[in-house]
């Protein structure tokens, strides 16, 4: 089952997973010895001989790289709300263990208000709940800087208060920054002898720092979408084989005060699957695939997706159930 929380505000539910892309490093671990030895065969007169060379060794230096990714889409908030969190992931995409320093900023151009950093404003998501909870440990620079092995990540919460006086539709940006304690700089910058296992540390393509920016969106109401699926294969079983059918059910509900006007649900048809014509339903009522008078349609532009106009939704509206089916290519 795939669940999506806090999706949306002011109307549009989207199940695009773009805010949570996977990042992975490549590379032989720092400190590894790369050895080369050659052999030679030859003859002198009628006699043959062999010889082996010295072993020539190069040592793998440490690459300093870090990537910060936002794990939550736009977070709906109301004016004056306290302790509103944005979830980030900090991944060591280098090839050796490294310590990272974290910073946050909420004064960013392009939004309508500046969120007010809470005190403290950066927490480890210690209990892996994805939300700020009592067990989460505050981050203190220089004291509990995360130490990450190559490819390892840590989830971080950035916490802000929302000023009073902001209005529906206002956006406030907040950013998490991470940088390698060994050093940052232009790619290729070398810190001799400062890498793991005593090797050199070399700044990688990320400049050894990274950042990601999250968004609070003021809305008196939040829409929530929970997606579930069932698989039916053509042999009467439930295996997800080519030709099998996946039936999706998405339950959209509104929480909070107020009304979300002109709400639209959209969901991309997953890669390597094909929409089954005529399977789109809203609250069990069939919707035609064409763009016409009814609330739903299937479209291939810009990419294959289904869309259902849910209209005005409030908490009193109750949940809305969207269904459609695809087959595995």
């Amino acid at each position, binding site marked *: 089952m795939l669940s999506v929380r806090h999706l949306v505000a002011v109307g549009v539910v989207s199940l695009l997973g773009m805010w949570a892309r996977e990042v992975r490093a490549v590379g032989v671990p720092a400190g*590894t010895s790369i*050895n080369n030895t*050659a*052999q*030679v065969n030859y003859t002198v007169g009628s006699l043959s*001989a062999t010889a082996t060379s010295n072993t020539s060794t190069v040592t*793998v230096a440490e690459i300093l790289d870090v990537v910060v990714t936002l794990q939550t889409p736009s977070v709906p908030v109301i004016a004056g709300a306290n302790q509103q969190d944005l979830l980030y992931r900090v991944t060591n995409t280098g*090839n050796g263990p490294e310590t990272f320093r974290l910073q946050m900023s909420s004064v960013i151009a392009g939004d309508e208000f500046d969120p007010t950093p809470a005190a403290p404003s950066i927490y480890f998501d210690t209990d892996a709940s994805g939300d700020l909870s009592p067990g989460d440990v505050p981050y203190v620079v220089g004291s509990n800087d995360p130490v990450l092995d190559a490819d390892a990540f840590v989830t971080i919460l950035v916490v802000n208060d929302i000023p009073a006086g902001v209005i529906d539709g206002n956006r406030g940006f907040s950013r998490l920054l991470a940088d390698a304690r060994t050093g940052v700089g232009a790619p290729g910058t070398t810190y001799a002898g400062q890498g793991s296992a005593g090797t050199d540390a070399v700044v990688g393509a990320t400049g050894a720092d990274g950042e990601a920016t999250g968004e609070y969106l003021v809305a008196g109401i939040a829409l929530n979408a929970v997606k579930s699926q069932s698989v039916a294969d053509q042999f009467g079983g439930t295996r997800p084989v080519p030709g099998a059918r996946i039936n999706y059910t998405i339950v959209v509900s509104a929480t909070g005060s107020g009304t979300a006007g002109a709400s639209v649900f959209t969901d991309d048809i997953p890669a390597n699957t094909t929409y089954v014509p005529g399977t789109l339903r809203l609250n069990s009522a069939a919707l035609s695939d064409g763009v016409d008078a009814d609330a739903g349609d299937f479209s291939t532009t810009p990419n294959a997706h289904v869309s259902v106009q849910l209209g005005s939704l409030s908490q009193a509206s109750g949940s809305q159930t969207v269904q459609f089916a695809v087959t595995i290519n």
Partner: protein
Amino acid sequence: MNSRKHNLYAIVALITCGFTTQAFAQAKACIELKTTAAVEKEVVNDKGEKSKVLVPAGKVVPGTEVVWTVTANNSCKQPSDKVTINNAVPEHMTMVANSATGPGSQVTYSLDGKTFASAGQLTVQENGVTRPARADEYKHIRWEFKNSLAPGASAYASFRAVLN
């Protein structure tokens, strides 16, 4: 002990001692083999012209292309014949296509260290289909020198490989 005559005496002695036939087919060590690692570095001369020079490789980061050079020097007073250098692509490295060179040598490759063939002649089985092996799948390189290596002369073999 450089003369053929002395070697023959040694053979007689070995036979007398009952050694196997393989042991007495060995010549004395004539070729000294040396391997070095280098990386290309771009330098700018005082006229502002850029050129690339090889500098010794000590510490390298993943993605770096390392130039491995093998030097075979004949330290004997007789020529060495049928000089063949073998080098396995180092662990954690991927050979760069068409990078193996050696003046006066024929270069062949192998996936398993047993069957050697020219570039493009090796094949692999994948999902029941036979396809040509890619250069990044070559694990062994062999240089066979056509001419004999004169006393005091050196033969060179080199290849490039990228650190994974």
